[in-house]
């Protein structure tokens, strides 16, 4: 059994005997790539973080404003309401995380570990819902499930003859349901490789010991997947605490307040400034949680390595035979697709075709028309912003893929203190809500005026690059961990430079993950609107902000038209990307 060895690789040639040369020699041992990355991350994450922390001590809540205060913290933590919020938040975040995990886990298991027919197809289908912005997913579900107008209660009512009890959509349960659906694709993308890499003989050994399927699952498979699950849980949990789309659309009418809807309230007062001070104070407090989560994460990854070295050589991927349950499984996966993608999509399609915003109703069917869709797509603005969106999303995806690759590689391969710092820094943006990130970037670019990025689409790309950094870094680390370091060392022994090793060995080998990541970032950047809204100026409109402004200004049909087209296009790119990644990524 070979233990993975980590290396500290010097990267510069120095040969000399004179004192100057000795100095060069010492410098040469400092590895340039981690150092450059460190500086980049410092700029990308430490500055926004600093501005958030700074903001939490400013009376106005804006980092550039003056004065100091502790009021924000004291007003939050002296208010009993905060603690109630935290209670709700934990229930919401905890249940959503758990449900997303269960769904994604079951899907990943079906795809990676069983002989489910049409796995390639289903794999693409599972990640498709990624193309739906969570706010639209939430609105779609309101149209489907709202007690008064929802299509599903109506149908159920008809079927059961009115015996069906009301399903409260505007409730904690409804929020959890939609939030977990929104998180399934990302969870799947992280869980699936972990399951793929698990040696099936560990489970077979349990079967041979006489254990039943459930006993094996509970006592062998789950403990085994603990490290990736734990890291995913921390990721999802924090996402739940910060994402306000679902709490705003579903929680608010249902009178369920959580921390993120409180943040939404603080950020959207009826008049006056958003309460950045309190928001920042809430987030600074959240950072403590993040540090705890990261600590947990490190503990769990340490174990990952221990687990990995034990798997022997006779490893062959055997798949669990579903037998007569295969139809049940196909049904389950299809049901997920219907619930997470198809139904919300149909709901939005309905909105785009209906004359006015309304639930499903047969009366309105004669009035359905493509007018608003056609009308929307004949507007110049929609087209220019589409072009901008494509440019922004592509830039962000390319930039972040490259950065994540370098980061993942550096963090996994050189376990110096510097790379540990890199890892922590790359996780920081997860604790900064998107709107705050926008404010922070304004702050930064007004402080560094020599960078004429402000008001261009590039600043939007940069902002989004920062907020998706944690996911990028995580995914690439997972990919690099699976590579035997000797593959790269063989390149070094062949005389290749670091750049050549990365380009000709590393990139082709992690191509699958790289394509997956690229698509993930592209899609998320395309649909993101918080940062974009904060940073746009007249000529850098992107499609998502246009969509959002239509939605919030009484043109749901136009917004839904864009959403429908966007979902179709993004879905296609997701499917295309998966096919590319699957066919060429071995």
């Amino acid at each position: 059994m070979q233990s993975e060895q980590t290396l500290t690789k010097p990267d510069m040639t120095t040969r000399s005997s004179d004192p100057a040369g000795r100095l060069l020699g010492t410098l040469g041992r400092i590895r340039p790539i981690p150092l450059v990355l460190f500086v980049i991350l410092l700029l990308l994450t430490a500055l926004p973080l600093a501005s958030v922390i700074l903001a939490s001590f400013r009376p106005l809540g804006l980092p550039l404003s003056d004065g100091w205060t502790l009021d924000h913290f004291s007003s939050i933590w002296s208010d009993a309401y905060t603690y109630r919020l935290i209670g709700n938040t934990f229930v919401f975040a905890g249940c959503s995380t758990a449900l997303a995990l269960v769904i994604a886990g079951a899907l990943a298991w079906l795809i990676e570990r069983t002989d489910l027919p049409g796995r390639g197809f289903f794999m693409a289908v599972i990640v498709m819902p990624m193309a739906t912005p969570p706010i639209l997913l939430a609105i779609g579900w309101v149209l489907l499930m709202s007690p008064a107008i929802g299509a599903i209660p109506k149908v159920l009512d008809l079927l059961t003859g009115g015996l069906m009890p009301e399903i409260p959509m505007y409730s904690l349960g409804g929020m959890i349901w939609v939030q977990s659906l929104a998180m399934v694709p990302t969870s799947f993308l992280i869980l699936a490789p972990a399951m793929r890499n698990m040696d099936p003989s560990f489970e077979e050994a349990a079967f041979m010991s006489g254990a039943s399927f459930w006993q094996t699952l509970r006592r062998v498979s789950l403990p085994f997947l603990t490290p990736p699950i734990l890291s995913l849980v921390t990721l999802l949990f924090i996402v739940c605490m910060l994402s306000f789309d679902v709490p705003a659309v579903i929680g608010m009418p249902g009178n369920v307040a959580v921390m993120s809807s409180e943040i939404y309230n603080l950020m959207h007062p009826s008049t006056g400034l958003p309460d950045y001070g309190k928001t920042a104070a809430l987030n600074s407090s959240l950072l403590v949680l993040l540090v705890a989560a990261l600590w947990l994460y490190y503990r769990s990854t340490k174990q990952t390595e221990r687990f990995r070295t034990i798997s022997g050589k006779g490893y062959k991927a055997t798949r669990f035979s579903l037998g007569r349950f295969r139809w049940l499984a196909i049904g389950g996966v299809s049901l997920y697709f219907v619930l997470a993608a198809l139904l919300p999509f149909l709901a939005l399609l309905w909105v785009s075709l209906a004359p006015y915003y309304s639930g499903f109703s047969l009366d309105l069917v004669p009035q359905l028309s493509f007018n608003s869709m056609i009308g929307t797509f004949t507007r110049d603005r929609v087209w220019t912003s589409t072009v901008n969106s494509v440019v922004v999303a592509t830039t962000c995806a390319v930039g972040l893929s490259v950065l994540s690759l370098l980061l993942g590689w550096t963090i996994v391969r050189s376990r110096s203190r510097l790379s540990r710092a890199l890892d922590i820094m790359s996780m920081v943006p997860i604790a900064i809500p998107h709107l705050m990130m926008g404010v922070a970037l304004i702050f930064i670019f007004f402080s560094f005026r020599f960078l004429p990025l402000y008001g261009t689409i590039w600043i939007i790309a940069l902002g989004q690059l920062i907020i998706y950094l944690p996911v990028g870094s995580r995914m690439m680390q997972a990919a690099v961990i699976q590579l035997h370091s000797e593959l790269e060392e063989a390149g070094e022994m062949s005389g290749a430079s670091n750049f050549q090793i990365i380009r000709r060995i590393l990139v082709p080998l992690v191509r699958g993950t790289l394509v997956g990541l690229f698509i993930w970032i592209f899609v998320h950047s395309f649909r993101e609107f918080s940062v974009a809204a904060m940073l746009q100026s007249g000529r850098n409109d992107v499609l998502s902000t246009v969509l959002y402004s239509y939605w919030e200004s009484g043109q749901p049909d136009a917004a839904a038209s864009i959403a429908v087209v966007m979902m179709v296009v993004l879905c296609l790119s997701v499917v295309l990307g998966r096919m590319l990644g699957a066919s060429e990524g071995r």
Partner: protein
Amino acid sequence: QDLETQTLEEVAQAAQEEGTIVWYESIPLEEAEEVMNDFLADYPDLEFNYVTVGGSQRLARVTQESLGGGPTADVLTDVAGSVMMMADRGFVRAVDWEKLGVEPGSENAPNEYMLRTNAAVYVTLYNTNLVDEADVPKTYDDLLDEKYTGQWGTWARPNGIVNLLPAWGEEQTREYVEALAETRPTLYRNPQAAAEAVGAGEIAMAHFEPYHTALPTIEKGAPVAVAFLEPVPVASLYGYLPEFAEHPNAGKLFLSWLASPEGAASVERATGRGSPFSPGTEMSATMEGMEVSTLTAEEESGRADEIGALENEIAEMLRGH
């Protein structure tokens, strides 16, 4: 700060040279374009750079930009409290409005920093399929009827109710809200969502809704109608000129146009937001003779903290806490 005292002609002259107007507003570009086109018909040599930024985000952004020393927008609108907050920091230009042709002493120009351009009129929307003509509420007391329990909704931010303060005073307002909260409203993240919920039939009525939010839905044929309850709460909106604007004269020119009857009418045509205080608008015709309750600029800016606290309190009460 020095009072700027050009005349309209001088401003128009200087604006020509600046060439561009940077305008941050929350309405969609298409609506803004109609307004801009009306303006450009008078001043064809100028051009616009229009930026869609909604409500409080806009204020935050301008504050942040101003803190950084600009550039920022040339024209902005907001409620009086926000404008005065900006003015206190020295981010707003002081202008002699009289020189620009504004009637002296009018509430339309409460001080040198702001000029009333528009207003939000808070009304009750109802779904005509769900509410019989006879049941349409006529007074605020009608809203307290138990039969509407769970049947109505409103924006989670009770800005409309706050504007009842001048008419009712704090105590009565609070008592009323307490009673209203008993009927369990559904709270929406923004007034638009509430208006759409009425159109969709999810709730029968929405109270304290800005009038204009109902218009797009009504135009598209949704079964929504409007009821004015008296006193009608109205929130005034004021235009102002940021200190760090890149094109101050162009901004000034546009602002004075927006505040003029011609401008107000144009905005109403484009967006449906009409001001009862602007004689040329349909809104002022509709509301002819109705009792109005509105916080003056002075009240709003002078008691900003107090009013803010009350708004939060009312929001909490509606939420059922």
